[in-house]
């Protein structure tokens, strides 16, 4: 028993170590909004490609038809009462929007509904949707930026199992189809057979894959890939990194280093994309915060939205951290990567 006491004492000590000298976070000045980053390095936003691309709505139609939305019953009810608000709250919570964001949204909605004298549930639902779309729409730039000269580098980060490799494969196919020459950097040298998985995709979509030994330094893979892209005149490098839980300091440090390597090579790093699984709950916000802190995330790739999960956590991520969703993954084939569309996303939220 006394041993336990001592241990507790030592933990308190550990806590002191942390509090006292070892410093509260050195959240560097790096915390500024994403806009005032690389700019000066010759990055220009490309115009969206003209080729017709699959839309989120089409991809989600199947899912939506199979599910009776939580708001169906609400819509046909006659008047707005306490139950209406409860149902709306439940719908938002079920979409993983989170308690805090839901509360804020509903407070705004109440004020709006009162002002506009909305008396029918259907009206209130439409108001809520409009409110959400307005919040997402703004003047957010959701395009993936490219460098003017030299290979463009997009780096993909995220926790384990969110679908980084698959998302990269799909984007590679899309970009190759648009006439870009793509090089894939298999910088996930940790997970068994991660490089093989990417190599399979590389073969399928016709992109060169640069890989190292398992357990090799991922930085060297990134550097080699960018150099190879430069040498071959490829214009896009997609960097696959190992999944990592955002609470592991050393792994996040490694990622920071990887970012620096990507910046130092002959290419231009224009996007650091955080991949988030649509089934993720409230932890998504913590993930976004930590990754943004470590590597200045420029956008979110929301994967697996073809399931019944709604991915509502991205609302909180956009609102609190200002990181826009740029790409959505909705299925297994290479066509299944689509630009994020606020209207369609909000529709699907209540589908």
């Amino acid at each position: 028993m006394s041993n336990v006491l001592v241990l507790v004492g030592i933990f308190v000590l550990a806590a002191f170590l942390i509090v006292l000298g070892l410093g509260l976070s050195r959240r560097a000045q790096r915390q500024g909004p994403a806009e005032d980053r690389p700019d000066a390095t010759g990055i220009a936003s490309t115009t969206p490609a003209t080729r017709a691309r699959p839309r989120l709505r089409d991809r989600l139609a199947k899912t939506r038809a199979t599910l009776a939305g939580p708001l169906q019953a609400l819509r046909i009810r006659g008047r707005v009462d306490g139950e209406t608000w409860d149902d709306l709250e439940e719908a938002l919570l079920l979409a993983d929007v989170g308690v805090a964001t839901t509360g804020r949204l509903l407070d705004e909605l109440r004020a709006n509904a009162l002002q506009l004298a909305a008396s029918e549930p259907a009206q209130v639902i439409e108001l809520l949707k409009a409110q959400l779309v307005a919040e997402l729409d703004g003047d957010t730039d959701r395009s993936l930026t490219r460098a003017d000269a030299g290979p463009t580098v997009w780096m993909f980060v995220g926790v384990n199992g969110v679908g980084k490799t698959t998302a990269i494969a799909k984007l590679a196919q899309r970009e190759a189809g648009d006439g870009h020459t793509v090089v894939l950097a298999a910088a996930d040298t940790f997970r068994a057979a991660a490089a093989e998985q990417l190599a399979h995709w590389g073969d399928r979509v016709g992109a060169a894959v640069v890989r190292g030994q398992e357990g090799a330094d991922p930085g060297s893979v990134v550097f080699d890939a960018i150099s190879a892209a430069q040498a071959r005149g490829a214009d896009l490098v997609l960097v696959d990194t190992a999944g990592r839980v955002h609470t592991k300091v050393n792994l996040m440090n490694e990622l920071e280093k990887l970012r620096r390597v990507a910046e130092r090579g002959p290419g231009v790093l224009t996007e650091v994309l955080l991949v988030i699984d649509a089934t993720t709950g409230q932890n998504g916000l913590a993930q976004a915060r930590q990754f943004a802190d470590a590597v200045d995330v420029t956008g979110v790739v929301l994967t697996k939205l073809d399931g019944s999960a709604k991915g509502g956590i991205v609302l909180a991520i956009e609102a609190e951290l200002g990181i826009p969703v740029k790409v959505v993954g909705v299925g297994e084939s290479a066509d299944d990567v689509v630009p994020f569309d606020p209207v369609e996303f909000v529709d699907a939220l209540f589908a």
Partner: protein
Amino acid sequence: MFEALSDRFDGIFTRLRSRGRLSERDIDEVAREIRIALLEADVNVAVVKSFIARVKERAQGAEVAKSLSPAQQVIKIVHEELVTTLGGATGKLTMSPKPPTVVMLAGLQGSGKTTAAGKLARLLHSDGGRVLLVGADLQRPAAVEQLRVLGERVGVPVYSEGRDPVKVVKGALREADRLDATVVIVDTAGRLQIDADLMDELRRVGKAAQPHDSLLVVDAMTGQEAVSVAEAFDDAVGLDGVILTKIDGDARGGAALSVKEVVGKPILFAGTGEKLEDFEPFHPDRMASRILGMGDVLTLIEKAEEAFDREEVEEAEAKLRKGELTLEDFLQQMRQVRKMGPLQSLVGMLPGMPKELRDAEVDEGELGKVEAIICSMTPDERRQPSLINGSRRLRIARGSGTTTQDVNALLKQFKMVQQMMRQVARGKRPQLPLPGR
């Protein structure tokens, strides 16, 4: 979070105490706070409802009203109820009386099935089982390669012959007979629960495998979806248990509660890290604390037991009692604490840590600096820091590649820790001096 929850409760109960009895309104208010806490932990909305109903019933009983600290009492009830709900025996698979026992893993894409298969194989292999791993995930490119690499690391054979998962499983069962395997672990492809074709395929794989344990693999970070996922998989193959993965992050893991409530079968194992050994029996009590944000003292103590030497602990205890703590001990303890893992995750496990502290980012490099400074001191200086004068300070700073300011800061902090430790020795709860930002 725990702090926040108990703070909220305290507010409610201070008013209550003067009246001595819980009114319906009080209970509703308490229930609302619990609801928020659970929802923030990703427990499914519907599950929260039924859970709250149970807690409410118990909270209305006399046990709360008479208690001296009703807030703590209610938290205790919530915690107990969580443990009961999550509960059941831990870490035991149903073993077939006639080997081989077949274990089938199923779940969404990216939930960690293949890794869990490898970890489970390692666990059973080290318990003396003859394990055969079966790669029936023919969807994801290189999934079978991944399993092969894991099998090689664990030292168990991997079977994956055939183009169709049902055939793979049938072949694997024959192979298991041939190898006289005691356990067969089938890794299936990840699939969405709403994908009718793939769920049908899973049904057929299940029929061919006739598993003694159909296990659902669930990511601890899953949100509200956990319920429909569990329902659909249970429907398709009749689940016998759950493996909860990726609990090494900071997700509160409410999904565990959602899944347990739906499936009604025990959560058997938890994946706790990237390494193959990072796999343990599921502990309902720890998960309950975690969902409530109460820290995870038990895991912490376990880690400490691994990292600390018994004699050293006893020695430290003696010194602690006398209030004598030298820089030497400080260094030793710091090293041991660091052996337990990243400080940040340790702090997260401490109950009742102020939020600032838990959210603080720990710069591990800074710890190295402290180590260097102490290592640059003579043994005398470490025992008696008051010896350190200007020129010694300069020497220490040079020797450790730091500045005299750094050395000064460390000495000052150490003094504070010493004072704190004296308080502990006197049996007082030390006051945490929170630094200003």
